[in-house]
């Protein structure tokens, strides 16, 4: 890996953290509506995972999607503009926080109905298999999604039809406010893949390099075998499920312990310095650059136009717009 590649991972994690900190403030100011689910604490998961994909690999995820959107290359300004519901947002203000997408960048959304995008991911993989493409569909979802029927239908189908899907379960230990052990019959989500004879593994998601390495192996497994693989990545969200979460289901000590001991940005910072990949000064410089980018993104979003009222009926049907 080249030095700039190492630094790019750091840069992407910073962008996610800083963009979401700004989003949190804008939400409190009433500039962002609806739900806002922050990815802070989980940055290493999507950053490591998406860094391992090839351009032809499709990415689809659940509603905690800002990080994935940035990792897939959507400019921070377009992500922020979507949060503000502006015409320049990546979904033109139609989708908001939970429904970001950029098909040109092979990012197929942000999907907000828990587990519902898993059968769709299987279908995208079917599309690639039908055409004999070399692509893998990377489907991310939370631990909570493993308890709904769509998950089981999709995993079963992916195995029966030998579909090139990488199932990635981000286990952040809580489905909304319900701890995994209170909602799931098994403690490791990968155990559910066993029931469908899908090869699987579980890793910690707080070290971006380890996530990247495991993701590369998993993607290779899917690409070479043309069958699904299930990767569980254990992580932790430092913020509430969404804005306004009173967090009665976990103690502040628990959260602080994770923040102090397992901050993915802190862990990677230490790694870069200790391995002499970058100096502290260089990383400080990168952080300043990322802060500047996010400021520009906020400015871009705030100064962008609202969607035009006459566009209300646009895109209901493809054929009506022709």
């Amino acid at each position: 890996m080249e030095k700039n590649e190492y630094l790019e991972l750091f840069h992407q994690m910073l962008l996610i953290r800083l963009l979401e900190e700004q989003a949190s403030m804008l939400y409190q100011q009433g500039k962002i509506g609806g739900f806002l689910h922050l990815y802070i604490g989980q940055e290493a998961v999507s950053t490591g995972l998406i860094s391992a994909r090839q351009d032809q690999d499709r990415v689809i995820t659940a509603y905690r999607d800002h990080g994935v959107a940035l990792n897939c290359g959507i400019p921070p300004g377009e992500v922020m503009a979507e949060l503000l519901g502006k015409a320049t947002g990546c979904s033109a203000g139609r989708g908001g926080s939970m429904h970001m997408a950029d098909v040109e960048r092979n990012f197929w959304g942000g999907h907000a109905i828990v587990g519902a995008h898993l059968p769709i991911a299987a279908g995208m993989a079917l599309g690639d298999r039908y055409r004999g493409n070399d692509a893998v569909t990377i489907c991310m979802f939370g631990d909570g999604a493993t308890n709904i029927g769509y998950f089981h239908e999709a995993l079963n189908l992916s195995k029966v039809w030998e579909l090139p899907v990488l199932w990635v379960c981000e286990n952040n230990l809580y489905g909304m406010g319900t701890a995994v052990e209170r909602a799931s019959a098994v403690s490791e989500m990968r155990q559910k893949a066993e029931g469908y004879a899908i090869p699987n593994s579980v890793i910690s998601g707080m070290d971006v390099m380890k996530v990247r390495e495991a993701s590369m192996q998993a993607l290779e497994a899917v690409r070479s075998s043309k069958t699904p693989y299930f990767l569980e990545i254990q992580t932790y969200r430092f913020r509430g499920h969404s804005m306004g979460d009173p967090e009665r289901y976990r103690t502040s000590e628990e959260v602080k312990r994770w923040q102090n001991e397992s901050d993915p940005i802190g862990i990677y910072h230490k790694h870069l310095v200790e391995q002499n990949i970058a100096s502290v000064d260089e990383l400080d410089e990168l952080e300043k650059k990322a802060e500047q980018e996010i400021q520009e993104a906020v400015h871009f979003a705030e100064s962008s136009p609202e969607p035009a009222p006459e566009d209300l009926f646009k895109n209901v049907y493809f054929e009506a717009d022709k």
Partner: protein
Amino acid sequence: MPRITVREAISQALWEEMERDPNVFILGEEVGVWGGSYAVTKGFYDHFGPDRVKDTPISEAAIVGAAIGAALTGLRPVAELMTINFAFSAFEHIVNQAAKMHYMFAGQMKVPLVIRTVSGGGRQLAATHSQTPDVIFAHFPGLKVVAPGTAEDAKGLLKSAIRSEDPVLFIESATLYQSRGEVGEGENLVPIGISKIQRTGNDVTLITYSKMLETTLKAADSLAQEGIEAEVIDLRTLRPLDMGPVLESFKKTNRAVVVEEGWRSYGVGAEVAARIYEEAFDYVDAPIGRVAQKEVPLPYNRTLEQLALPQVEDVIKAVKEVL
């Protein structure tokens, strides 16, 4: 012109579209080796092979979900749901995924998907397998809902549905498969979203679709013997709903009855009547009549089942009430 069954018409449409476009493929329960639970895809598996005629597990959400995903990649899946009663298990994917994606992602994604399914009662399958919940699906913008009543329309509309860039729920009627009609050779595409006058008359306008077209035409023939000439309009598509021919006819007859197989509450009759009142209030000479299924879960017993379903006599009676 050859007279063929609705089953043959649908089968021909599928076959011809699959021959025409390699991106068209079929998936569903028992569509392949079995030949289709209503024998619509008989012979397809041997001709087109397992990659284009895909047997699925009994897994409706996965069938529709996977069809959506495949459509997103540019394929043209035709997903078969054995009956519309099983579509409830895929409701999320039909109305909350397929119908939303083009809009919510601002036109970035399109879902050229057809979901074929079978609606209606009358075969003693009892309450869970006999429903006509077509209007539920027609409630959602973003989805097109098509329900032909003749062999010609079944073929022409299915071909249009397969070529549509939008998701289409294509509703067939189990008791119409054996019904015969003239179907011309060649393309004969029928556009989605266009109602059709199936019988002309000046005394009353009868509005219907799918299986009830047959019932309504029988009633119209019977009424004609009494000197009452009914104009019968087949909606053919529930969304988008084409009210043009309905309003034109109503302005001539000033009286209307809507005939549907599903329940009366919140039904097609409610929608069509409301639109007539909104658009042609000055032409109304009598309250618009509605013939529909009795408001009970359909019973197994044949006599009770037929009592609950709309019959020719119900249509005749309703017409006489508005005259």
